[in-house]
């Protein structure tokens, strides 16, 4: 056999070192944005000063402590987890469907999560008290997870036949699923009482304003678990890019990768929606930008999507708190205003593939 040339020269076309460097910079960016976000708010609390005092054991004013640790910190962590969760969901879903247009928000997966959450809020009271007590604050996230999993499984079953995914079928099935889910959600909302309606409206606008430690502890671990597990899918999703048959030929357990991808997407989307309502387009914008920078190799794409998604949502949250201060604009409006045109751009640049 031909002797291997073991020169240490870097191979052209291998962009993994770019992904690795980018991960470092994105981590730094996230740290910076997080500090900024922590110091940013209606009250003039200086986050660095309070943190410094806290570390050095100095006395902290009670209001400062409340603002920083009970309002801003849970909001910050929620924003990071939700942003990372939505971006990683998008990247995993796009890898699974072999399509850059797949997004939980567009294809009914978020709608499924909403349905679960709505059902839990409105109909949860009908459950036996024992179950209700056992589920506690986890009821809404769990129901949202179940809803998004169902939507995802149905969507995949329809769009992918014999190992091939049809783009048109995927998009149209997503629309149909979202419409059906919206109808059922409407039916449930119809029988909600006034207090439930207020809860629902507040929640469905898509906002981090309601973030609290309680909600974070209920939904956060689900998102965190999905984020931690997702990089294990990298090789499987790379192989799937060649099609299911070729993926199996190179040694990938295709069925297992598909099941894991569906569960991870459902968990991250479901818990994100449960905690913050409908925040769209993060899942499509973030992975797409990263693919432009470092290519579609999932080895770093999944990790970097999480990092950039967290930063993007924190920035969007700061904008939502500032733009019409002292009132707050729901963050979902901001992500949709930026994400909508971006999606059209992705759509147009992939026109050739869609027509084919």
């Amino acid at each position, binding site marked *: *056999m*031909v*002797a*291997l*040339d*073991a*020169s240490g*020269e*870097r*191979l*052209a*076309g*291998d*962009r*993994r070192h770019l992904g690795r460097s980018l991960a470092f910079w994105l981590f730094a960016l996230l740290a910076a944005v997080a500090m900024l976000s922590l110091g940013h708010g209606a009250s003039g609390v200086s986050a660095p000063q309070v943190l410094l005092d806290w570390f050095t054991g100095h006395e902290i004013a009670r209001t400062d402590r409340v603002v920083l640790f009970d309002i801003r910190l849970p909001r910050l962590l929620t924003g990071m987890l939700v942003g990372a969760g939505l971006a990683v969901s998008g990247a995993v879903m796009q890898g699974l469907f*072999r*399509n*850059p247009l797949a997004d939980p928000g567009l294809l009914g997966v978020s709608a499924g999560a909403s349905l679960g959450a709505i059902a839990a809020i409105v109909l949860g009271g009908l459950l036996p008290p024992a179950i209700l007590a056992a589920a506690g604050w986890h009821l809404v996230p769990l129901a949202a997870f179940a809803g998004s999993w169902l939507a995802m499984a149905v969507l995949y079953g329809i769009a992918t036949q014999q190992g091939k995914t049809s783009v048109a079928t995927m998009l149209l099935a997503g629309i149909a699923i979202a419409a059906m889910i919206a109808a059922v959600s409407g039916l449930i909302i119809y029988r909600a009482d006034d207090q439930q309606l207020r809860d629902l409206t507040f929640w469905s606008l898509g906002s981090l304003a309601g973030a609290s430690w309680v909600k974070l502890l209920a939904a956060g671990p689900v998102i965190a678990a999905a984020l931690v597990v997702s990089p294990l899918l990298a*090789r499987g999703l*790379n*192989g799937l*890019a*060649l*099609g299911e*048959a*070729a993926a*199996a*030929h*190179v*040694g*990938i*357990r*295709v069925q297992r990768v598909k099941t894991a991808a569906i569960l991870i997407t459902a968990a991250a989307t479901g818990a994100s929606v449960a905690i913050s309502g409908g925040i769209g387009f993060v899942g499509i914008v973030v992975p797409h930008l990263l*693919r432009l920078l470092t*290519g*579609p*190799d999932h080895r770093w794409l999944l990790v970097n999507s999480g990092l950039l998604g967290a930063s993007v949502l924190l920035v969007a949250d700061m904008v939502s708190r500032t733009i019409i201060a002292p009132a707050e604009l729901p963050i979902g409006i901001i992500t949709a205003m930026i994400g909508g045109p971006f999606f059209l751009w992705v759509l147009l640049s992939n026109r050739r*593939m869609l027509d084919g």
Partner: protein
Amino acid sequence: MRLQARDIRLYLGRAEILHGVDLTAHAGRLTAIIGPNGSGKTTLLRALTGEIAPASGNVVMNGRDIAGMRPGELAPIRAVLPQQSVLSFPFTVAEIVRIGLTSSHVQDDGHALIRAALSRVGLPDHAGRLYQELSGGEQQRVQLARALVQIWHPVGSDGPRWLLLDEPVSSLDIAQQLTVMRLAAEYARQGGGVVAIMHDLNLTAMFADHVLLMQEGRAVAEGSPVDVLTDHRLSGAYGCCLQINHTPSDGVWLLPQGAGL
């Protein structure tokens, strides 16, 4: 060591595509599967790769029935070149070839192996190019390089490796056809097994050591090229008239008759 298909019966939907096909491919040889369109060649190859399970019969590779083997066990001993591959993300050539290393335990970054494989398929300078921007023929050779890195050494400690090729030269010009066929023949000469679906009967005559002729889901002839590539057999299977000519160096070349020449 052999790759053996025994009495393969296979349905796609309700249609019976293979009606009990036998094939014995030996390591160290290039085995060609020929036959007209729709005769079941690709379906047979898909059964040999383990992609679809036959309704009855079995495929035995190096003494093991592949039905009981996981993808991760099969990958180190056989690689597959599909007829066509579509890709929806902008991977570079190097990234595509690296996918062939999914199940291997390459200690380093795999760069040397990827580079060597691209050289062998005649694309030494294409590692940094975007796969989607290559011509069909170049894409096919990138896929071949991807299959090659998967089973780089034709013989491993546990037996020969198998290269299964579905029309490896279908979209290549004549020089590249020879490059790829020589590569396949070389792989066999070094002890590996090669099974290739072939459309070009002249290339089959030039390179194959063993030929299986298929017609309507059955193997109608199996043997050496001289035995299988006969006027009678080919005309019967392909439904047209072929003239077999013998070269002075003991080879054969074929001409379709009735072309108005």
